[in-house]
């Protein structure tokens, strides 16, 4: 989507045009879902967060600036929705742990590991899922979404220089995890008696 089309679309969204909203939804729904699913490491949670993201978009559509860039705006909202969810989950975990009623959930493996098409993609998904949220979101925004570090900095609310540093560290961590996974075979062959 070129900038002129985007500006025209923003104007229509501001006016509350449903067709314009559908266009934005079609352009960003899968991308936002991928971002949220990899951040939350769960498809079900990602669907809930995605719904919240779109509802916030609709609620604030009339207040968008005429020069709003839809991509960074939507990813910022999605990231904030995820942060809010993380905070509420942390509170629930702490409460549950202090009450000793429920076990604190242990992060499970990413659902994408199982669906990744090839071995490298599978390793990459696993390595990505093993990183901290901070490192993951940087790699998702710049690596997967193709944002510039400056755009990603805007989404995460940090300076471009800080984002470049975060990207550098996250990239090193990802490479390390990937190298570790290469040492461990993904498929374990077991002997079968004839």
């Amino acid at each position: 989507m070129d900038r002129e089309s985007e500006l025209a679309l923003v104007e229509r969204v501001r006016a509350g045009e449903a067709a314009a909203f559908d266009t934005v939804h079609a352009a960003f729904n899968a991308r936002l879902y991928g971002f949220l699913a990899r951040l939350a490491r769960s498809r079900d949670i990602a669907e809930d967060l995605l719904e919240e993201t779109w509802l916030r978009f609709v609620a604030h559509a009339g207040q968008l600036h005429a020069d709003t860039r839809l991509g960074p705006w939507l990813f910022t909202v999605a990231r904030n929705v995820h942060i809010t969810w993380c905070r509420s989950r942390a509170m629930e975990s702490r409460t549950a742990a202090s009450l000793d009623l429920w076990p604190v959930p242990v992060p499970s493996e990413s659902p994408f590991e199982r669906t990744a098409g090839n071995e490298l993609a599978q390793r990459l998904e696993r390595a990505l899922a093993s990183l901290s949220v901070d490192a993951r979101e940087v790699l998702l925004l710049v690596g997967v979404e193709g944002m510039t570090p400056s755009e990603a900095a805007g989404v995460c609310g940090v300076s471009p220089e800080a984002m470049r540093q975060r990207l550098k560290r996250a990239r090193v961590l990802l490479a390390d995890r990937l190298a570790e996974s290469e040492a461990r075979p993904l498929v374990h062959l077991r002997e079968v008696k004839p």
Partner: protein
Amino acid sequence: MTMVESPDPLLAELARLTAPEPAAAHSARVLARCHAVLAERGQPRAARPPLTRRRRLVDGALAIAVAVYGLMTIAEALRIASRLP
């Protein structure tokens, strides 16, 4: 959104990862909810019902009473002020 001009092979591999898709039923449900919100936002606010004759009379009487009370208060204040040494 502009692409990062970086030859970094690791970031390039990330860009090639298969994007997961949300369930079609979920997307349809979210779209419907958003359309409902948009439709609600687009509706003009209910117009104020026109005042009835009786209501206008009551409003007028109240306005006259307030005005009379105000005038009497001012007159009383002036009277007391004139008596002060």
